[in-house]
């Protein structure tokens, strides 16, 4: 992407084309071209995780955080409830994932074994045990109780002492805390605290010493296995749901019809009729098939890079679509024509064509940055390897073909056919998952088709 497009010079005084004013449904294809779309895709990656204890924030006099910032020791003798040695992690637990988990090893239970592990908020009073104050939670070693925002605990699990490894985790899907001891799950409790939570350890009697593992070392508890079983549990609940048999066939069929994959559709139709037993596909075709062949032909031409022929055919078959020479479809086709010139190294002709057909779009807000990116192809000796190389990828042709197809479909009298049935279902699924997640304070994994499709490949690699 060129610099000019990344700082997206847009201001209200820019001229806006007729297409925008009419809310051209094909407008969305411009966004699909812009490479910035993909950056958002991975917004749940790159979330920072805790790496060490926060030495500054910990309660100075009572606790010593070791130089590696991964262990704490209580050196004084404890006197009262307000001289607990507490240390939080340097960062809150990441939450755009299924679970967060960390472990502590009790190196020395000291005089009284008042070790605790838990989660606290940023403003936690650093002289109190996690769990004693509101918006905190802690599993205490001396009594094995769980403390949830008050001074009295509830029976929860076993006590723990010198030599024990204890883990604390958050399951964002079920909105629960869970704790482990020496690799075994102790229990789970509902998480009623909203917002960022910091992994927290506490020591509160002389010579108590605890080291923390934020994942640098292998965990004693099989947290991967825990995640897998949590996923499987959900997957099993999903698999139990009944859907009408063979519904997938109908959706695939209408998808092929929608996008004008005529040859695939014919092969598919033939095959479903001859299988044993024959597959009955409910006919729910909102799109009539009469112009399937035209749409298929145009798609093929665009995919082959023969934009001149595509434009000529459009002019013949659907003059109304190319009537407005500043429409999005015209713009995309002219851009593609330019790109095809670049692909075969005919730069001079490309420039000539660009001046003739693309100049009229310069100054129109929604096209400007794309034109600039397109022309940036001219700058590089090897455009394929350049930052704007995506224009030369196969997917770019597919996108322009999709835009032409959408223009034809939306030009029909009956209802808007911008999306295939399959796409509408996938959009609904995505929004349902996003909404549910946003009601959980944006915690947990997001649904992304892309990730679902990659899942099996990942499983194979593991």
């Amino acid at each position, binding site marked *: 992407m060129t610099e000019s497009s990344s700082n997206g010079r847009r201001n209200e005084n820019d001229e806006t084309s007729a297409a925008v004013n009419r809310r051209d449904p094909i407008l969305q294809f411009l966004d699909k071209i812009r490479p910035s779309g993909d950056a958002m895709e991975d917004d749940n990656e790159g979330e920072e995780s805790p790496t060490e204890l926060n030495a500054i924030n910990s309660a100075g006099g009572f606790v010593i955080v070791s130089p590696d910032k991964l262990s704490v020791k209580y050196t004084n003798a404890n006197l009262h409830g307000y001289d607990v040695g507490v240390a939080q992690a340097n960062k809150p637990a990441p939450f755009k994932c299924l679970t967060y988990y960390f472990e502590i090893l009790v190196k020395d239970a000291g005089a009284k074994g008042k070790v605790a592990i838990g989660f606290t908020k940023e403003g936690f009073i650093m002289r109190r045990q996690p769990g004693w104050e509101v918006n905190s939670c802690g599993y205490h070693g001396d009594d094995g109780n769980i403390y949830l925002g008050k001074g009295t605990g509830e029976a929860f699990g076993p006590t723990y002492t010198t030599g024990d490894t204890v883990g604390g985790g958050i399951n964002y899907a079920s909105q629960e805390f869970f704790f482990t001891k020496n690799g075994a799950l102790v229990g789970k409790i509902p998480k009623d605290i909203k917002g960022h939570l910091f992994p927290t350890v506490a020591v509160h009697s002389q010579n108590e010493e605890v080291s923390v593992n934020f994942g640098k070392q292998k965990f004693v508890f099989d947290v991967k296995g825990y995640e897998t079983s949590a996923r499987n549990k959900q997957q099993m609940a999903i698999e139990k749901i009944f*859907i009408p048999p063979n519904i997938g066939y109908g959706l695939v069929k209408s998808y092929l019809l929608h996008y004008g994959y005529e040859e695939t559709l014919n092969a598919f139709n033939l095959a479903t009729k001859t299988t044993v037993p024959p597959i009955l596909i409910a006919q729910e075709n909102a799109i009539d098939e009469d112009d399937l062949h035209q749409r298929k032909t145009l798609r093929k031409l665009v995919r082959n890079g023969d934009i001149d022929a595509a434009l000529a055919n459009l002019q013949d078959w659907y003059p109304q679509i190319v009537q407005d020479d500043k429409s999005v479809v015209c713009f995309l086709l002219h851009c593609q024509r330019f790109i095809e010139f670049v692909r075969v190294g005919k730069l001079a002709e490309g420039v000539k064509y660009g001046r003739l057909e693309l100049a009229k779009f310069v100054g129109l807000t929604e096209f400007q940055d794309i034109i600039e990116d397109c022309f940036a192809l001219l700058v590089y000796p090897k455009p394929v390897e350049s930052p704007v190389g995506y224009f030369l990828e196969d997917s770019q042709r597919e996108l322009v073909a999709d835009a032409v197809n959408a223009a034809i479909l939306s030009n029909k009298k009956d209802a808007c056919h911008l999306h295939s049935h399959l796409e509408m279902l996938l959009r609904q699924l995505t929004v349902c998952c996003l909404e549910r997640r946003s009601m959980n304070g944006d915690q947990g994994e997001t649904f992304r088709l892309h990730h679902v499709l990659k899942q099996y490949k990942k499983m*194979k690699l593991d």
Partner: protein
Amino acid sequence: MATSKKVITRDEWEKKLNAVKLRKEDMNTLVMNFLVTEGFVEAADKFQRESGTKPEIDLATITDRMAVKKAVQNGNVEDAIEKVNDLNPEILDTNPELFFHLQQQRLIELIRQGKTEEALEFAQEELAPRGEENQAFLQELEKTVALLVFEDASNCPVKDLLDISHRLKTASEVNAAILTSQSHEKDPKLPSLLKMLIWAQNQLDEKAVYPHINDLSTGQLKTPSE
């Protein structure tokens, strides 16, 4: 009762739907996965050409897999076993249950054809030794041989074994085993995603009121009745 639920209007919902970034390549991949897993080799081949989507496995393996499946569906079990072994001998070696089910199907076909002597010989030589190793196999074997007791199999309590659906069941079992041997999931992803949509809507129902898709085949949004 539903007062605490968040209400999302159709307008708001549609805005959210339109804001979803879906990659065309991903939808194409999903469709290709369906064609490949369900064994539509011609369609997968055309789809690769028409959309530029790469199939996740070599399309030639689909042809082989479907040939095995078809052989079982047509009752040519011996042929099917040979084909599976040509494809990958490990499939049957590592899958005694599948191998037993194929042999059992072969026995059923012999009985269907009225070849009583051949059926008995086959049962004693090929299936009985396996029954000795495995109690469940033995029971299955006994059940199958019971087909011989009745002159008219339609009166037989285990007549289901002769039903075409039993062939289809065996065929889909062998189909799944071949897919697994090719490090491929045995089911297409699309039906799971549709189930997930129903599930996700059910989950969200607990917290919000919003437009639903009730009819999966049309994808029509239905605003909840006020």
